[in-house]
């Protein structure tokens, strides 16, 4: 089956490594994707923070375009995924929002495009057994903590993604690669400060510092994420956290698609492992993979 693929702004900009590794993984596994024609920004947090109908309308515009490709839209960015699902829910349950949005986009929309994440596709459709058969470069010797943050799991009634306090879908998928997984750590679904990166950097630095400390204490060699905002905040603010709190963070923060791609035999370059601010050289050395 073919998915309409909504990359979103981050995956074509500051999260280019997420975008390129996601496309490479889909290609390696034969998951067919085609870009949503002329997709627009989902508005992320500012969209709905400013006006509820605005946030919904921006996602709806993209979902209407997605229909030209498929009725299932695959989304990788946690924010775009959250907004698409929230918008479908609003269109189904809030008649006054739906009326405003339909006037603004100029078309009827019933909230009926199915929104799926690559993690869900791998877990529920592709199947972990099939995935295991494709692993050619086991990631043994590396220990990682899977960090989910907010947007994939909350609000659980609408996201219906995984357990909201202890999700394990990333662990299940990465377990096929032979990587060692941190079992218990406290900050798996804590907020990274998200959209305050610019406006209240101090808040983000405090949140990130706590997340990194928790992962390091659990013995992680890296943090694995599925959200461009989590990646940017945890990766780019380590220096500031070190300064503010007298810590010595130096923890690589990578996307699950980058590790999975590596295990599927792709080169570090093909999955963008040269792009994070905190060098991933140490990880590759542990895995005996030459850059």
């Amino acid at each position, binding site marked *: 089956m073919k998915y309409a693929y909504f990359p979103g702004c981050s995956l074509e900009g500051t999260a280019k490594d997420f975008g390129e590794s996601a496309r490479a993984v889909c290609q390696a596994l034969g998951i067919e994707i085609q870009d949503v024609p002329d997709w627009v920004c989902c508005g992320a947090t500012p969209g709905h923070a400013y006006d509820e109908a605005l946030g919904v309308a921006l996602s709806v515009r993209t979902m209407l375009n997605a229909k030209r490709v498929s009725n299932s839209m695959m989304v990788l960015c946690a924010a775009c995924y959250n907004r698409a699902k929230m918008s479908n829910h609003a269109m189904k349950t809030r008649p006054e929002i739906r009326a405003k949005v339909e006037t603004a986009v*100029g078309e009827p929309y019933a909230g009926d495009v199915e929104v799926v994440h690559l993690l869900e596709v791998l877990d529920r459709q592709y199947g972990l057994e099939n995935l295991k058969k494709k692993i050619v470069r086991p990631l043994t010797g590396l220990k990682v903590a899977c960090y989910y943050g907010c947007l994939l799991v909350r609000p659980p009634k609408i996201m219906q993604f995984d357990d909201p306090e202890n999700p394990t879908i990333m662990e299940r998928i990465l377990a096929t690669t032979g990587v060692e997984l941190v079992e218990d750590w406290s900050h798996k679904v804590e*907020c990274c400060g998200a959209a305050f990166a610019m406006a*209240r950097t101090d808040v983000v630095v405090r949140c990130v510092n706590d997340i990194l400390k928790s992962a390091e204490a659990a013995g992680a060699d890296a943090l694995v994420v599925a959200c461009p905002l989590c990646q940017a905040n945890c990766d*780019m603010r380590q220096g500031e956290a070190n300064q503010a709190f007298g810590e010595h963070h130096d923890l690589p923060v990578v996307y699950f698609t980058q590790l999975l791609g590596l295990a599927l035999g792709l080169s570090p370059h093909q999955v963008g492992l040269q792009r994070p601010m905190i060098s991933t050289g140490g990880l590759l050395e542990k895995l005996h993979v030459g850059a």
Partner: protein
Amino acid sequence: MVVKEIGTPEAARFRQDINRRIAGQVEKCYQCGKCSAGCPIANEMDLMPNQVIRLVQIGLKDKATHCRSIWLCAGCVTCTTRCPQEVEIASVMEAVRHVAIEEGVEPPPEVRHTATFTEVFLRSVRRHGRIFEPGMVMGFNLRSCQPMKDAEKGPKMFLKGKLNLLPHRVKDRGPVRRIFQRLVPKL
């Protein structure tokens, strides 16, 4: 849940307006404080999330719309997820902020930048249909009077191939313009 009105009609109107916006009932809150206990931003807030809920319950609109917390809420939805009474706290924080925006309430100085960021971000979307990150960051820095903020990060990100020097625009910008014109003409 049946609610007995005891406050002024004005107070009741504010509470009902918020209930309508969140499609829920703030009256269900019994002030256990669990929402505030798990809030990652509670440190920086002037009113705890459960206190904002209380203000809405008793209809103190001015106090609620003038607090810092509604601009500091990160929308992480931890509170809503954990509330034993299924109160949509995150939606309440947002709904009170929407009332403040609609009525032109100036955000307090400590949180002015969060409102500025929201506006700069959305104007970038209105213009290009997508976010042009470097342009947005520069726009924010200028409007928030901190031109050199994160300046050292730009060249590093460029070398890592994480910055686009030109915006990636949507082909047809009409539909996005129309959405903004219809829904938020004042932005």
